[in-house]
């Protein structure tokens, strides 16, 4: 009898593994989501020239104002950035958010023309032509958005364009002081 049960063991193992894989597939985890180590840490150092020539460079001082700040890496050549642009306009105009734009690997005049054509949601914008600031922030591409709280700690990170659900579920509560 116990022999018989022994034969069932491989089948049981298989069923267990199948169950485990089905579970990991169905809990809705995005296998491509790799998170960011920056979240929960102080904002990485920032020292880049302003996008608008003649303006003061962008530094860490931006995160020491005591107010929550959104940092959006964008580029005029990036189509998803275009898609999320109206959301940032809304964050600026309806929610009063402070958004810092960083043009990543973008020519200065192209980024400026893009903002002129679409509208400018940024309180201040910087230029990261070589992608060095992007590397310090752990960027993998554009668009990417970080939310830095009043104490200068990164609280949220979004890889890819923001969508409505991100706004209602996390960004707007964050701006209102409720860190999710």
């Amino acid at each position, binding site marked *: 009898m116990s022999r018989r049960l022994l034969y069932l063991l491989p089948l049981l193992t298989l069923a267990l593994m199948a169950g485990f894989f089905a579970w990991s597939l169905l809990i809705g985890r995005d296998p491509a989501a790799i998170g960011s180590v920056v979240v929960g840490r102080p904002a990485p150092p920032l020292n880049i020239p302003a996008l608008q020539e003649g303006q003061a460079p962008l530094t860490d001082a931006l995160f020491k104002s005591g107010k929550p700040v959104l940092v959006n890496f964008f580029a005029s050549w990036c*189509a998803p950035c*275009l898609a999320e*642009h*109206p959301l940032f306009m*809304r964050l600026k105009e309806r929610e009063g958010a402070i958004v810092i734009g960083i043009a990543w690997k973008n020519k200065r005049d192209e980024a400026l023309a893009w903002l002129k054509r*679409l*509208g400018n949601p940024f309180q201040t914008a910087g230029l990261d032509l070589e992608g060095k600031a992007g590397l310090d922030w752990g960027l993998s591409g554009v668009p990417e958005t970080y939310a830095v709280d009043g104490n200068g700690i990164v609280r949220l990170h979004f890889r890819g364009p923001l969508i*409505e659900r991100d*706004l209602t579920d996390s960004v707007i509560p964050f701006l209102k002081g409720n860190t999710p």
Partner: protein
Amino acid sequence: MLELVLALLSAATVGVLLIPLLGSRFDAKSRFEGELGIYRDQLAEIERERTNGILAESEAAAARTEVERRILAAADQAAAVPSSKPPSTLHKVLPPGLALAVPLLALGLYLQLGHPGLPSAPFARGSAPAEEPHMDIARLVVEARARATEHPDDPEAQAALGEALTLEADGTVTQPALEAFNKALQRNPGDPRTLYYLGLHQAQSGDSAAALARWRDLLTKYPDAPFAPGLRAEIERVARAAGVDPGLPPAPTGPSREQQDTMAKLSPAERQQAIRGMVEGLAERLKENPQDRAGWLRLANAWKVLGENANAVDAYVHADSLAPVDARQLADWAEAYVRQLKPGDPPPPAAVAVLERLEKAEPRNGLALFYLGAASFASGDKQAAARRWKALLSRLPPDAPIREMLEQRIKEAEAK
């Protein structure tokens, strides 16, 4: 072709699996005979190794006893199973059932999740751009901007600018586009195009609820407009993205999918015939159910497309008697009237009434200005005729072909 190859492959696989399953069904006795042969060989082998000195005497004895025990156990088993008893139904059905279930399940999953009708990607990519009408968006924007600057109070010009700017931004309603639409809305609060784009802007800036409310409102007002199907699709798309119920009113009944498919196979003449048949069917149904305003409007539009302008006018009259039609439908109605005119003839009184309503709704409508001018001219009010035609002339592009003729007629009107 590929499907056939795949089907053959699965059939072959199932066959390979089934042959041993079906072949292995000896009855218990013949199986025992087979086993016995193996055991005999084993015993002979042991004996050979013993005589050759490979196996020690004690080892050989142990091995032989083990084999003999197995023979006895096998014999017991064979005796326990009555050899005449047919294999149980489960035993008979399970292996072929399982073997068939795998390809059938796979097929079912494929039909559920796959896209059997999907064209291969290189083909789709190669043919798509060729069919897209080439549009010089940059020129469109320049022209729209020039017109909007020239006529800052014209809602039409502002809305056109907003639309051009949106096109330029690949369908994103940008901040400058939004400003143009807001200006257009101030002058013309009911303009469906402006309302559509303002809704699109709301959807894009993360306020799907407001966008959907605005669009649903628009669809209720214009259930039969040419843009209604597109608007429905947009509502569904945004509602799906936001994870809410689209809350759409039921769609007006159009030709079904099968009808469209059979339609596509007909020759142009046959197709024309079929369309006419469908339109006549609709007219019959409306005779029985004359309160269906949306139906009358659809019929009017269909007759107009078929060039049956008198029938179209008739249908518009029916629809209008149920509830006044909107500006766009007024324009179509008036057009159905004037298309029946011989060149140079003034419009009849019924047409003038419609044109006057159109002029009231849209003071800058070219059709109304031209034909009401002709009516005024015919009735002797040459001043009014000249005023209308001049208004039209100022709105025409410089290279409009009718410019010359219009200037000629203005001269005639101002002659006395």
